């Protein structure tokens, strides 16, 4: 008797679950599709915010960045992608100071782990969601991130020592 009951209940349970599955897929059938028709929609295609396309150094409108050339990003990079080139200068009031000359980033060996951005004490670098990076030679993938003629943001340099 019990097995008979089980036979019928399992039959109707199975039928119910099948119909439920079919209703879900039918709803999915009519939902808007997520496919991006890429080259056509290039003008208005927007990547999601968390997409890591390329490392950049943040500059403000006065062409100033936050990088103090500490080299923590370089040390954290698992792929040896970043090379921070700096020099020692003596300021007007006689202090010795390390200043960034070139921030080199090899896009070809970056694995987009974001460890550099996480470890940066001054939020000087960030990832942007650009994605059209194809070039013809590897040399073109080695990028200088600090803009030409940029320098450290002045007040930032004074306050960072206290805030951190």
């Amino acid at each position, binding site marked *: 008797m019990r097995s008979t009951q089980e036979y019928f209940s399992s039959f109707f349970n199975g039928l119910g679950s*099948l119909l439920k599955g079919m209703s*879900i*897929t*039918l709803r*999915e*059938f009519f939902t808007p*599709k997520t496919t991006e*028709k890429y080259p056509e929609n290039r003008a208005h295609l927007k990547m999601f915010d968390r997409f890591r396309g390329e490392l950049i150094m943040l500059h403000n409108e006065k062409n100033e960045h936050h990088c103090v050339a500490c080299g923590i990003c370089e040390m954290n990079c698992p792929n040896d992608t970043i090379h921070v080139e700096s020099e020692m200068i003596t300021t007007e009031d006689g202090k010795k100071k390390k200043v960034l000359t070139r921030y080199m980033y090899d896009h070809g060996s970056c694995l987009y782990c974001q460890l550099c951005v996480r470890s940066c004490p001054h939020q000087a670098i960030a990832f942007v969601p650009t994605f059209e990076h194809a070039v013809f030679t590897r040399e073109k993938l080695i990028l200088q991130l600090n803009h030409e003629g940029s320098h450290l943001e002045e007040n930032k340099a004074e306050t960072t020592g206290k805030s951190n």
Partner: protein
Amino acid sequence: MFDFTVVTQWVDEMLRQLLPAPLVNATEFVLVGICLLVAYAVMALGLIYAERKVCAFFQCRLGPNRVGPYGMVQTVTDMIKMLIKEIIEINHVDRFLFNLAPYIVIIASLLAFSCIPFAKGLEIIDFNVGIFFLIAVSSIGIVGILLAGWASNNKFSLIGAMRSGAQMISYELSIGLSILTMVVLTGSMQLSTIVESQADGWFIFKGHIPAFIAFVIYLIAGTAETNRGPFDLPEAESELTAGYHTEYSGMHFGFFYVAEFVNMFIVAAVATTLFWGGWMPLHIPGWESFNAIMDYIPPILWFLGKSAVMVFIIMWFKWTFPRLRIDQLLTLEWKYLLPINLCNLFLMVFIVVFKLHF
């Protein structure tokens, strides 16, 4: 309603004026054969396109959309690719059987295809045991599949073919019994008569409960019969690479592929013919003007439209349900479908004897 025999008779008379009598028949055979093959190929292309689009839409994608408008030329280019591909000679196969197998599959499918009544007067094979003939020839395909598996000299192919054999032989019972249920209601096995007798109401309405149960069982068994998901374990690409057609390449593989798709159409077309009135337009008693408008739609469109809905349901099955294990497959058939089918057949006989149908 347009009767297609007008066209066929016109062709026949024209040929009789032009050619001597013995040649007329031969020419007509060739013409019918060409029409059939073209229709078969076009149907396969359309179905492959539809399958890819439907599958994509169920998975929240767009599917083919690059070649031609909405990607409609995609399958044509795929066909050209398939035609110019090399057919690779495999070393340790039984060459004769290996090369024979795809043709058996495609011939079985083509024979079944030719039984379908597409529109009024548009049917190639139509005689008093039409539906019986259809079941018989569609089962020949399994011989081709078994041969393919056996001749390939490959474990995957053999396992796939054996699964396919077990599956098709089991589900043939369900198909046969559900068709028998409808034959009990019609009292005829001739496909044209079956369609004609649905002029005053499709069988799904006329036969109400048993007809509906038979329809559901027919659809499940038909899906299994065509080796489509969720019953695609003869191919089961995750465990058997491609099952019985693992070793095939080029157009030999193409034949299996095309036959699978057209078999799906044949299952849908038979479901349309038996349950949904074939090419009969939808008539609602009392609504005269509505019925008149429905009569204006050509029967071929009615038939193809209804079949398209059936094909969509079969695709819907495939892209919803996970694949069954071989024991689950056989349990479904022998423990559930077969007893239900037998009870249903009895119910139908009861209804027909006591005239409880409409």
